[in-house]
């Protein structure tokens, strides 16, 4: 059999190249179609997710407003609670007049005060503090007494009053060059009990 072929090699190559291009073109078209389908599916999913997101966002906004309102209410409640506490503290705290009456009872007939100061804690300060930072009320008084015995009597009476946590005698001094009958100066610091 005489087997020849007069189809030029370049035409054969071109045909093969076109066949390859058609093959890959089909693959690319299939890939694009698949991507399109995937994109469509994802788009539909995204549309669903977006509407769900919008719905959740709306709910979140409403909840956030409610939460903000609740925060305001809580803040208001706390403020009111603070005010109530302050009022209660003020109501329950020992009045200064009572302290003065108490001091008048503790003094002996030969003694008198030259200085008196009362430091009171602001409302709730004595409760909120912790450890050494806790605020305590303090009463400081200086005066003259007929003798050391009178100073001792004053301290004893202060301790018995059960109003002060501690009663501290800061100092007792005798005036220089003065006679024994002229008495002594004293200074006492008392810590007030918390209300």
């Amino acid at each position, binding site marked *: *059999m005489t087997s*020849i*072929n*007069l189809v030029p*090699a370049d*035409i054969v190559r071109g045909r093969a190249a076109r066949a390859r291009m058609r093959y890959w073109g089909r693959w690319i078209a299939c890939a694009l179609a698949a991507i399109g389908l995937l994109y469509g599916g994802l788009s539909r999913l995204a549309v669903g997710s977006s509407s769900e997101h919008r719905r959740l966002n709306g709910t979140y906004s409403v909840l956030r407003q409610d939460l903000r309102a609740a925060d305001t209410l809580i803040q208001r409640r706390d403020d009111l609670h603070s005010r109530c506490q302050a009022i209660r503290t003020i109501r329950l705290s020992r009045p200064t007049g009572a302290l003065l009456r108490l001091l008048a009872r503790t003094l002996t007939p030969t003694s008198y005060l030259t200085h008196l100061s009362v430091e009171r804690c602001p409302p709730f300060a004595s409760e909120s503090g912790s450890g050494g930072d806790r605020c305590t009320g303090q009463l400081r008084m200086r005066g003259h007494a007929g003798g050391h015995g009178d100073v001792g009597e004053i301290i004893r009476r202060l301790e018995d009053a059960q109003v002060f946590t501690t009663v501290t005698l800061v100092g007792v001094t005798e005036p220089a060059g003065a006679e024994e009958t002229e008495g002594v100066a004293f200074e006492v610091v008392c810590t007030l009990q918390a209300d």
Partner: protein
Amino acid sequence: MSISTASLPSPRAGRLAGASLRGARSRIGVEAGESWIRLAQCWVKGGRHGWQTAAFQISAPVRKGSRAAGRARLRAAGIRGTEAVCALNSPYVDVFPLTLEPRPAEALEAQIVARAGEQLSYPPGEAVLDYALLPQAALRPGGEGATVLVFAAPRRVVGALLESLESIGLSVGRLLTPACALAPHFATEPGSRGLAVCTGDEATSVAVIQDHEVLIERILPWGLGRLAELLSAELGLPAAQCRRLLTRAQGQPGAADSDEPVQAQRHPASPDSEEGGKEAGTSAPGAARSLATPEPFDCAVEHILGPALQELAQEAAACLGYCDSFLQHIPAKSVILTGPLAHLAPMHQLIENELGLHAGPAGPVLPGFTEGGEALGHAVAACCALWPGEGGAR
């Protein structure tokens, strides 16, 4: 330029071997010139087989409208598929033998290219070349070197043809000459030679074939179209009418080629037709011819077309003379004619007178063709359709 080494011969396929058919249809066989193409496709169904054939004119360059028309013609003819094997029956095809020095295959090809340039009338760079080694059985004993038969065609002609065929949906994987297409189905006795004459629409191929190998092929620059024009000029008839008259000589007036744009024919063949086809070159269609063709017409044809037919007979004698002179001397035993003019009595007569051999139409020798049928005009296309080798390019 493309040139490639001839591949090993494939085992010859059966006459209508089912193995050579893909599914229920063969590939499409095409016989093409520059403007006419003939197509054939074999079908097999339920143990029966037959042919779908068509012939129509193609215009080059192919216009958009004619592309659609070509596709429509294929559909109308019932020819389906795209894979095709084509035989180029054109005067542009050059076939010539070369005796070369014994060298390796690569050097052989270089020799062929160099020597072909001397033979061709155009630069070898513009040619498509292929070659076939002549069989040892045909060569003279003791000869040195390789004798090859070189086939060449202008690249522009081949390119235009392939483009035209591609435009109507045909993908040609193999391009042959008419003799190469006929050779696998050309049944001769082992060791004997035969002469095959294939008249196409634009050219006529004359070839000597031995053991299914083409020894020499010549392609004359005239065919049915040119003969019809000569007849038309002489008789004053339309060329289309003259074509019809020439092809009517086949004995089937109704089935002859006409001037219609498409002739699509379905040729169901009985199972007996395949058996009958085994007899090579023994047909004698004279009786049918004498009924269909009036004697005066034969005389007129002989008178008008005598020079052309005489040239054909002389070319056939020259081919046989070449084979006897340069190859081993083996007398030819038969002359087989195919193509639309295969039944033309004056042609038979002139060839018989010139060669002293019986000349007859090749109907029975072709696969699935009934003797005397119009399908003989599509014999080359049919042989291409049943080309036993692979259809693709090497």
